[in-house]
């Protein structure tokens, strides 16, 4: 059980905070122990030096040569279908859900409350049935 996600050329990373927060980048080259040269041609991030503290490594990698140009990175990214695969991950879905939650309007919150209520009522009914079973035994 060792490390599976490495800072390496071609590693796809999620920018956790800073001006490009929420976007995916590919590590194109490593500057030193704390910074990398990252490029996100398919996510609108200009090629720049980013501190590793801002990056969260994903499980995806793309096949690029060290210091490849943005065009080559884009090709490799599209070939590996990174954007599509990212959208399908639980991580991306959770981020999307979090974002949706902050963008709810009052009516949406009302609908959410009603949906939660309905769900919880079903759970309570089932729990009651189980409780009755226990009492009977």
């Amino acid at each position, binding site marked *: 059980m060792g*490390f599976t996600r490495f*800072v*390496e*050329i071609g590693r796809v990373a999620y920018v956790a905070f800073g001006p490009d927060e929420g976007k995916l980048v590919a590590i194109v*080259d490593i500057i*030193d122990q704390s910074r990398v040269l990252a490029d996100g041609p398919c996510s609108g991030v200009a090629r*720049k*030096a980013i501190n590793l503290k801002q990056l969260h490594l994903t499980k995806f990698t793309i096949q690029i040569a*060290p*210091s490849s140009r943005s065009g080559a990175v884009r090709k490799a990214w599209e070939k590996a279908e990174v954007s599509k695969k990212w959208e399908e991950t639980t991580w991306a879905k959770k981020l999307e859900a979090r974002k949706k939650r902050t963008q709810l309007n009052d009516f949406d919150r009302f609908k959410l409350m009603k949906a939660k209520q309905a769900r919880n009522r079903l759970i309570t009914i089932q729990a009651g049935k189980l409780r009755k079973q226990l009492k009977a035994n």
Partner: protein
Amino acid sequence: MRFKCAELKEYQIVGKPLSKTNEKTPIYKMRIFAPDEIVAKSRFWYFLRQLKKVRKVNGEILRMTLVSNSSPTKIKNFGIWVRYDSRSGSHNMYREYRDVSTTGAVTQCYRDMAARHRARAHSIQIMKVEEVKAGDCKRPIIKQMHNSTLKFPLPHRILKYNKKSIFVAERPSTMQ
């Protein structure tokens, strides 16, 4: 706005001593790393005074240009020759830094000198900054990065910015 913690800027300053008679005086050009124009001019006169018999009173700055970064997306190795005053004397040093820009490397140098030698900016003189080819680098900490298949994990990751969970029931995982 000038911030001490921001990256330095590179200025090319050209100046010359004023002549009392109408004879031609030599013109001097310097490469100054400073946070803003005012400090740049000041440092220019500081160095020129040390190197040549010119003072700000007897001289003029002909041109000052901000040198912009030639390739901000290319990683380079920089060799920086420094002269600094320690508590008990003056020393020369050769230091290497890996960065994307000259100004970034020089800024790193100042921070590094402060950290490792407690040298303040006023006692540091940057003598020369040169881009060094990977094969000519001397410092192992720079040479270890010269590996096209370099990879390393981020072990024991402590995420300091995580404001959403300050108080948690269980110890957070630092794995990956």
